[in-house]
């Protein structure tokens, strides 16, 4: 039965076209994710692009890989000072300036961390902050991050003082302090890009999956095959379970196939280096989730999968109840646009943030949640929104199939 339910979905021309569209868009996203970080400024100040440019950049940055201890931080500051004191760097000539930039490509990512960790305050980003550092400041690198957070949470002017409860503030500070330092740094463009562009893939996926799922139940009514279906021996029991199983298998297979293509292409091209580096060794330095890049990506794609399963089941439920494929197809679209609508509501911003953090659309972009300060305080037990959202939608995804089953099996033919 399951085999034929799957066949029903893909026997339609629309089903195959949807898959092809998804494949094309996924490949396009891969191209974008790999191509956007494949620039190298050579010794003449010219910009090279393509695979070889990316390899040169990767090798230059890998030369600085290792434990980012005080000594390495000092060396990076010194190297940065050396570059910034050259006539080329200070020249108004673009070519000379580019040449100087090229010298700093190896330390570019660590230099970026210096900008963050030595920022004037938690909310300010200054690209040139590293240029004002001196080697003797290297020892302040890790404590600075904690200090910046504490100052941010204590500042009554920026609103965060009131936004978080004392328990939440304590929890965040503890999380910051729990980050294992000194941490390991490496070239991690692959993980950075694969995380950054993931929502594009997940949005494409849910649209396509929604289209594929929308007809599983409602098409019986639209094709008028419902009478024969429901009057058959298994029409009100295992045939419905077969539909649910087919939906689940399609979501699982399509999702993981697309994610596999996307992940392997991007990481295969840019490299798997930096898998064990913490999130905080990148632009996600504010994150209070102490995870490595690989762990974070695994959680993001797992959360996305749970989100897709939930939205797929919700699509099936709506199309089964309404007998309308169109309403089913609309479901993922509404779910994706729902956050925009809620953001415009004139409620308390903290409540809005908490609602947004728990909407199914957020599961499709958990890479964002990694750096959002969304917290939940359950009577003193504080945790980030990420595990709450995942747990919530695992439960809801498990609860939906029995509801769909019960709704569909008692349908009468009109």
């Amino acid at each position, binding site marked *: 039965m399951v085999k034929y339910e799957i066949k029903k979905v893909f026997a339609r021309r629309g089903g195959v076209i949807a898959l092809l569209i998804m494949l094309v868009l996924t490949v396009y996203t891969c191209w974008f994710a790999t191509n956007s970080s494949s620039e190298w400024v050579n010794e003449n100040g010219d910009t090279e692009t393509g695979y070889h440019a990316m390899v040169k950049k990767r090798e230059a940055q890998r030369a600085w890989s290792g434990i980012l201890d005080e000594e390495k931080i000092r060396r990076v500051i010194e190297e940065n000072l050396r570059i910034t004191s050259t006539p080329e760097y200070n020249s108004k000539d673009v070519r000379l300036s580019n040449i100087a930039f090229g010298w700093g490509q190896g330390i570019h990512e660590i230099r970026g961390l210096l900008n963050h960790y030595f920022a004037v305050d938690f909310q300010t980003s200054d690209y040139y902050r590293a240029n004002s550092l001196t080697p003797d400041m290297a020892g302040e690198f890790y404590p600075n991050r904690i200090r910046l957070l504490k100052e941010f949470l204590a500042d009554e002017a920026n609103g965060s003082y009131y936004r978080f409860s004392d328990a939440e503030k304590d929890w965040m500070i503890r999380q910051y302090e729990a980050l294992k330092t000194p941490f390991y740094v490496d070239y991690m463009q692959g993980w950075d890009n694969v995380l950054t562009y993931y929502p594009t893939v997940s949005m494409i996926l849910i649209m396509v999956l929604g289209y594929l799922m929308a007809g599983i139940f409602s098409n019986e009514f639209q094709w008028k095959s419902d009478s*024969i279906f429901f009057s058959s021996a298994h029409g009100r029991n295992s045939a419905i379970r077969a539909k649910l199983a087919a939906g689940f298998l399609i979501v699982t297979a399509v999702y993981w196939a697309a994610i596999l293509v996307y992940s392997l292409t991007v990481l295969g091209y840019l490299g798997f280096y930096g898998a064990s580096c913490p999130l905080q060794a990148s632009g996600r330095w504010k994150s209070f989730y102490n995870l490595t890049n690989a762990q974070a990506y695994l959680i993001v794609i797992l959360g996305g999968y749970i989100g897709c399963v939930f939205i797929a089941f919700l699509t099936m439920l709506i199309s089964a109840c309404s007998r309308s494929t169109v309403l089913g197809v609309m479901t993922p679209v509404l779910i994706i646009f729902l956050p925009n609508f809620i953001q415009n509501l004139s409620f308390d911003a903290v409540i809005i943030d908490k609602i947004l953090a728990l909407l199914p659309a957020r599961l499709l972009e958990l890479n964002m949640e990694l750096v959002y300060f969304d917290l939940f305080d359950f009577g003193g037990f504080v945790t980030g929104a990420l595990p709450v959202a995942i747990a919530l939608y695992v439960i809801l995804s498990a609860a939906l199939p029995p509801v769909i089953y019960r709704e569909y099996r008692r349908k009468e033919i009109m």
Partner: protein
Amino acid sequence: MELKITDLTKQFKEVAAVDGVSCTMTGGVYGLLGANGAGKTTLMRMLCTLNTPTSGQITWDGQDIFSMAEAYRRILGYLPQDFGYYPDFTVEDYMLYIASIKGLRPVVAKRRTAELIRQVGLDKASGRKMKKLSGGMKRRAGIAQAMLNDPQILILDEPTAGLDPTERIRFRNLISELSEERIVLLSTHIVSDVEYIAKEILLMKDGRFICRGTADELIASMPERVWSLTVPKKEAEGYLRRYKVSNVKAVPNGAQLRILSAEPPAGMQSAQLQEATLEDVFLYHFGERSGDGNGEV
């Protein structure tokens, strides 16, 4: 083998689509004859557990069919009036899928599919997509799917609707072949579909059985007689208004009418008494609607 309907009613808001009908069916073909909107489809849907009755009961060998649920549906074959199918499935895939939801084991499903496709004459079209079949071929696929589980109860709702005369005869013969050792309930508003093959005919009107029996019994029970007369063409209109006329045929000297009337039509002593047919019975009961085109005979 006994399918018993007791005081069955299905109410849709203010309208009783089926209004307290009762009957008992054992083996053979039962014809359910009535104009469109008589309640035939609603009755059949209840017999197929697709709609639940407002009141009354349907039992199979003494057991309530809704309580039997899957056990009842295992012995049921159904061809609905609006035969829906999966347009992109081939005939063979369609049959195999229906076999699977009917609970047939894969080996049996393959064997039955091959047998039935051959029996209904679709062997050359078994690899063709359902949406590419002609109306007659779709109907044949429909009857084949209904027979997959070798049902003890075969319910066919308007199976010949939209078929050309040749297909209709072929279909009738096929149903007759299939009727051995099972109950076949065939709903139609086309008299000839059931006239020769039905063991019993149930005339349904406004949700009720208004008359039942064999074709001969129904003919005998009609209180009016059938007259044939030829009148000038200009007078034919007047007869059509005053009498139930089952046939009008243009002849060189006017129009030959077939009239239902207890007495010879007024002023026409030359009218000849004719043998009544089931079509006349249909006209007698549903005559007021035949002018709307619903009482196709």
